[in-house]
């Protein structure tokens, strides 16, 4: 076996990918089922001169990575369920201050302590709206270790490109499934470095003045430009303001820099879509079940296909609309009570053809959970 082929669980794949992407600083707090990420990074990060710290709680872990990121380090934290709730205020600070950061949420059953060791996809909407105030954010997911690796590297790249927190919304099933992972060679996947300002020392640097393309080159804290960073609405110097024009422009900039690049950020995978009459839409571990059903029914000659979403936010509405055009029925397969279902319904012109196949009891969604819905739609009963 080649030494870049390993047999690992999803949490290990995420660690390998983060290191591949140049992770330099990790802060976390123990929580099931994401703890292995922290354990492994406490071992691996110092080997390359990076920093690991176990903080006193979830809130401070998020705060610490923002502090580290401002000094120019690629930073990440990882958590699950309750910990994701606790991080929300600081995630909003990263949004407002446009600080690149990656947050892994290995979803587990909720609400509250819920089902700590069971898979769930109940945090899809929280990833989008968990922190208060109008904003936009990037959220990605994957259904297997190889893809988890790819989207994790992507998360770092997008975070640096758009100066935004990126949420990696995995779940217990992907995080704890052991499977083969081929670690890409260096340079096989592009790793994007932070865009730094070319403004010279002694010249006025405006940390929050977007260039024509909307991007804001950064300057490391501790470097040659001294500026203010605040969670208050701020002007181009990063100084608090309530000036209505400045606030209006800031709000638009924060949302538009992400919503305006939905196409560029969208990652999807397609299986048998060309002639599909019945289209499954799924993401994360649920997509494994959806793929199984698709391949199984194809063998029986049914015209079924799968659209797997890897970017959940910004929601790739246009692409979903296009892909659903020729299908007579669309089934969203997810482990919640229809969080992406409603996005799909909103995206297409004939929402009455969209159905939900789900599971919320803590067990992993089974092919029969999907087949039962297909039978009902086809009028064959459950």
């Amino acid at each position, binding site marked *: 076996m080649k030494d870049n082929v390993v047999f690992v669980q999803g949490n290990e794949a995420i660690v390998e990918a983060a290191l591949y992407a140049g992770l*330099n*600083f990790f*802060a976390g707090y123990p929580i099931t089922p994401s703890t292995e990420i922290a354990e492994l990074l406490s*071992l691996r990060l*110092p*080997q*390359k*001169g990076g*920093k690991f*710290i176990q*903080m*006193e*709680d979830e*809130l*401070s*872990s998020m*705060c*610490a*990575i*923002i*502090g*580290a*990121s*401002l*000094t120019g*380090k690629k*930073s990440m934290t990882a958590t699950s369920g309750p910990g994701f709730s606790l991080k929300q*205020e*600081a995630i909003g*600070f990263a949004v407002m201050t446009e600080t690149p950061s990656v947050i892994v949420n290995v979803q587990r059953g909720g609400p509250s302590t819920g089902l700590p060791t069971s898979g769930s996809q109940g945090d899809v909407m929280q990833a989008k709206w968990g922190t208060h105030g109008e904003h936009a954010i990037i959220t990605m997911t994957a259904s297997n270790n190889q893809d988890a690796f790819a989207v994790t590297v992507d998360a770092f790249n997008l975070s640096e490109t758009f100066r935004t927190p990126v949420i990696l919304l995995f779940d217990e099933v992907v995080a704890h499934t052991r499977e083969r992972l081929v670690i890409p060679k260096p340079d096989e996947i592009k790793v994007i470095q932070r865009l730094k300002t070319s403004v010279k020392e002694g010249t006025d640097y405006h940390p929050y003045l977007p260039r024509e393309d909307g991007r804001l080159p950064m300057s490391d*804290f*501790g*470097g*040659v430009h*001294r*500026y*203010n*960073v*605040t*969670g*208050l609405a701020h002007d181009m*110097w990063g*100084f*608090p303001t309530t000036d209505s024009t400045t606030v209006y422009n800031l709000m638009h900039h924060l949302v538009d820099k992400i919503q305006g690049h939905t196409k560029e950020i969208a990652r999807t995978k397609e299986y048998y879509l060309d002639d599909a009459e019945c289209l499954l839409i799924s993401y994360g571990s649920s997509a494994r079940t959806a793929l199984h059903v698709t391949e199984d029914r194809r063998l029986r000659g049914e015209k079924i296909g799968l659209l797997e979403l890897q970017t959940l936010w910004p929601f790739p509405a246009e692409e979903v609309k296009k892909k659903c055009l020729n299908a007579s029925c669309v089934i969203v397969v997810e482990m919640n009570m229809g969080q992406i279902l409603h996005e799909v319904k909103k995206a297409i012109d004939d929402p009455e053809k969209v159905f939900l196949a789900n599971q919320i009891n803590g067990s992993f969604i089974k092919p029969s959970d999907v087949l039962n819905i297909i039978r009902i739609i086809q009028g064959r009963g459950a």
Partner: protein
Amino acid sequence: MAVKDYIREKFFPHIWCPGCGHGIIMGGLIRAIETLQKEKNDIVIVSGIGCSSRICGYLDFHTLHTIHGRALAFATGVKLSRPELTVIAPMGDGDAFAIGGNHLIHAARRNIDITAIIMNNNIYGMTGGQYSPSTGYGEFATTAPYSNIDHPFDFVNLAIGAGASFVARTTTYHVTSMIKIIEKAIMHHGFSVVEIMSQCPTYFGRKNKFASAVEMLKYYRDHTTPIGSKDKKNNPDLIERGIFIEKEMPEYCDEYDKIIKMASKGE
């Protein structure tokens, strides 16, 4: 350099009320930094939320104005990733010891080289005068209209108990010793806590029958005493000021560097 060289004049006027103690602390901090001849580019100020925390924007260093209570958590991220920087965290009493109390005790326990300056005015000023963890029993606040039945923290003892390796208390009346103490705290290699009693004439003063900021300063003069003074023996109610603890202990970032050496050998 002159004091004004450390200030971002373009962001003035500041938001503080006339007579507020926070400006005195800002002046003290600047003079301490000036005496130490620190490069402006090597200093990072990290604050939380409140009247006190606005100090951030006015100072011409790298300044990070964060969220309520979490200044030390952000500061930990900055310091651990760039240990060569001087990191100072000015916070209010509610910021540091109510919503942010957990971060303070853990930063103390780790002994990470950050200087925490607690601008203690015994009240939440920014939100209009609610009682804080240092409002005294029997004192008044907008949320204690009948009188406060909470007992206040003793910040100095709390910081010592949490393991801080430098702990001091001073007031806005004792400016020269305040400057000296801040200097020492910044130079101390480890976690330092400096409590500075600071008057809020607008809310604490008004609610507790202080006629003016000057009356409050006189109160600091008359109700505090140097550590171990004779006066304290005669009047145990006097609040002691000075440096309570100054000890050498392994510093967190140094310790982490040893981990890096150990780990990279193992590879």
